[in-house]
């Protein structure tokens, strides 16, 4: 078994991995950039090393520095989390060359699947349906213009090395093509260090449905069912659930088996996700493979009872999976909401600042994976994800009701965030009916206001605010008489010592 793991990440996923290490009796090593000295993940790892300034290229993307830190700290493995270097084949290869176990697939599988163009070819060879689009990297604008005409507008410009919606643009007609190509390429270069983009046909009303897989070193490859992640803004998921309301057991099995075939064709090892788009006619198309743990992995853990991060570590250590496909069951329903520092009323623009007061909800079926606390300063340097709230229920309605109540109880004061917006999504009648597709938010929430229409609640808030301000500023204290702070001496009542 592994003895010491460096976690090459930050925020909630680093906290999640550190807790898996502790559970397995493995020491964890955190890394942090200068502004992350007070980050939550550093409070959860056994050791912590400063690796550089705020800019990701100098810190969380600094391959040489991270490998050297792992060596200096005596680590035998590195867990990359998601984002940053998680899907960087060069990083995985550097780990392999340094004799450090990379917790993920082999560098060659990452390279193959990380290129959307090569992975598309591989999926087609494995028999999976693919979306019409370019299989070659467009050389210049004329090339792209001709290809786009052949495919037919609207089209999607995507980053070859991309993920998380970065470096992606919808183009409705030829007029927008040039600007979309250059801006997507710039964003891809900044986010992934590779500005290669390609184009493909935009499907009508597609759902995003992905299959979780696990593969051990003996080639035993299984699927842990689907996650539907259709609720997206800026092509980035914000609500995920499993099972998908759109799948029956036959389609689930077909998609699961297709995912396993693709994984086997890539000699896949460890946890991964095969993403598909499912169109209105329930035809699925291969999208891409994410060769890492996903943000939304907890909902699969809830319905299968399988700890994916612990299995990632065990598989990396050479362990065989102790269950087979036929042993797995989906039980109940789970939904996840991603809590972001962003303003839903201003085009989801990222927010930064200090979290003044923070309180996480709790109750039956709830889980909160967070990277924040009261007093934490959200900086502008990194992805604005703050935490993930997961609700489990016997069935979809119960899971959604629990989520709705939990979002109501989730207190995060000091920076704009999407908690209340997520509550409106969860309770939207079309979402409750399971009528979701990737354009759900732009269709049903074209406008969103932060300001309440309910004047009763506003009065409650003003009453509390005026009392709070009066207490702290003491400017109305003369109007308040007999005010006492409760202390143990006047709240405990009669007691005696033993």
């Amino acid at each position, binding site marked *: 078994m592994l003895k010491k793991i460096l976690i090459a990440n930050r925020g909630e996923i680093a906290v999640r991995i550190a807790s898996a290490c502790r559970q397995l009796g493995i020491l964890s090593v955190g890394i942090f950039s200068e502004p992350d000295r007070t980050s939550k993940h550093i409070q959860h790892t056994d050791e912590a090393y400063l690796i550089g300034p705020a800019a990701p290229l100098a810190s969380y993307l600094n391959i040489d520095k991270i490998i050297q830190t792992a060596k200096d700290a005596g680590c035998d493995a590195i867990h990359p989390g998601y984002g940053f270097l998680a899907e960087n084949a060069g990083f995985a290869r550097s780990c392999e060359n340094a004799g450090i176990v990379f917790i993920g697939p082999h560098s060659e599988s990452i390279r193959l699947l990380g290129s959307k163009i090569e992975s598309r070819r591989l999926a087609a060879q494995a028999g999976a349906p693919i979306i019409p689009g370019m299989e070659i990297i467009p050389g210049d604008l004329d090339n792209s213009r001709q290809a786009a005409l052949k495919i037919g507008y609207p089209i999607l410009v995507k980053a070859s090395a991309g993920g998380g919606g970065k470096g992606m643009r919808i183009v409705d007609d030829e007029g927008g093509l040039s600007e979309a190509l250059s801006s997507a390429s710039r*964003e891809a270069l900044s986010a992934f260090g590779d500005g290669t983009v390609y184009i493909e046909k935009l499907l009508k009303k597609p759902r995003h449905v992905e299959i979780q897989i696990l593969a051990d070193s003996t080639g035993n490859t299984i699927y842990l069912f689907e996650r539907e992640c259709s609720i997206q803004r800026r092509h980035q998921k914000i609500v995920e659930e499993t099972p998908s309301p759109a799948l029956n057991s036959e389609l689930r099995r077909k998609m699961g088996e297709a995912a396993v075939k693709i994984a086997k064709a890539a000699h896949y090892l460890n946890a991964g996700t095969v993403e598909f788009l499912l169109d209105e006619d329930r035809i699925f198309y291969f999208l891409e493979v994410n060769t890492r743990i996903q943000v939304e992995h907890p909902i699969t853990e809830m319905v299968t009872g399988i700890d994916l991060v612990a299995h990632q570590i065990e598989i990396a250590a050479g362990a065989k999976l102790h269950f087979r496909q036929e042993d797995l069951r989906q039980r109940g329903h789970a939904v996840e909401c991603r809590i972001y520092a962003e303003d839903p009323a201003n085009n989801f623009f990222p927010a930064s600042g200090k979290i003044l007061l923070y309180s996480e909800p709790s109750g039956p079926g709830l889980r909160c994976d967070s990277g924040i606390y009261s007093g934490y300063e959200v900086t502008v340097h990194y992805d604005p994800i703050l935490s993930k709230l997961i609700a489990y229920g016997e069935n979809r309605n119960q899971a959604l009701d629990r989520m709705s109540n939990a979002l109501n109880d989730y207190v995060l004061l000091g920076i704009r965030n999407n908690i209340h917006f997520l509550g409106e999504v969860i309770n939207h009648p079309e979402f409750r009916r399971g009528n979701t597709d990737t354009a759900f938010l732009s269709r049903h929430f074209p406008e969103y206001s932060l300001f309440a229409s309910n004047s009763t609640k506003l009065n409650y808030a003003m009453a509390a605010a005026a*009392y709070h301000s009066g207490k702290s500023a003491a400017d109305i204290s003369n109007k308040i008489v007999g005010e006492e702070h409760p202390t143990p001496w006047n709240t405990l009542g009669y007691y005696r010592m033993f």
Partner: protein
Amino acid sequence: MELIYNSEKIIAEISKSENGYRLSAMNGNLDFDIQVLSAGIYSLMVGNKSLKAYIAGNGDTLFVHIDGETFEFGLPKDDSDLRAGADSATSADDYLILPPMPSKVVKILVERGQKVAVGTNLVILESMKMENLIKSKVDAIVEAVNFSAGDLVDTGQVIIQMIPPTKSATS
């Protein structure tokens, strides 16, 4: 006390009443009882309706979470900070383009002297790995461009200065 909510100034005063406190606000009175639970956390009772309130402020804004909603109240520094009511007409601020948060300038899309209309693309900013396209909210003429691609801009720094188009130009 004065609070700003949805760009409007509201007055909220509380006084001690027979069984607790009374809020006197513009849309009526509210009798309530309130207890401090811990720093910034209160139990509020309105009749027998029981609510928990979370409150924190940063000097400019008071954040109140109650019954599943978060209210942001602006705290006026002095009266000159306040604009009368919510004006729907163009404000002087619309002619100054500032970043919504510290950002990097990716590309300036206009130049000095250029005429712009409502919706004209002005500048592409990048922050937290996201690109954000800033469009003009007004018809205007670009008077100055203070930054160029690659520059870092902080909140409060003016990237592009514009002036209203002349009357003769618009008529």
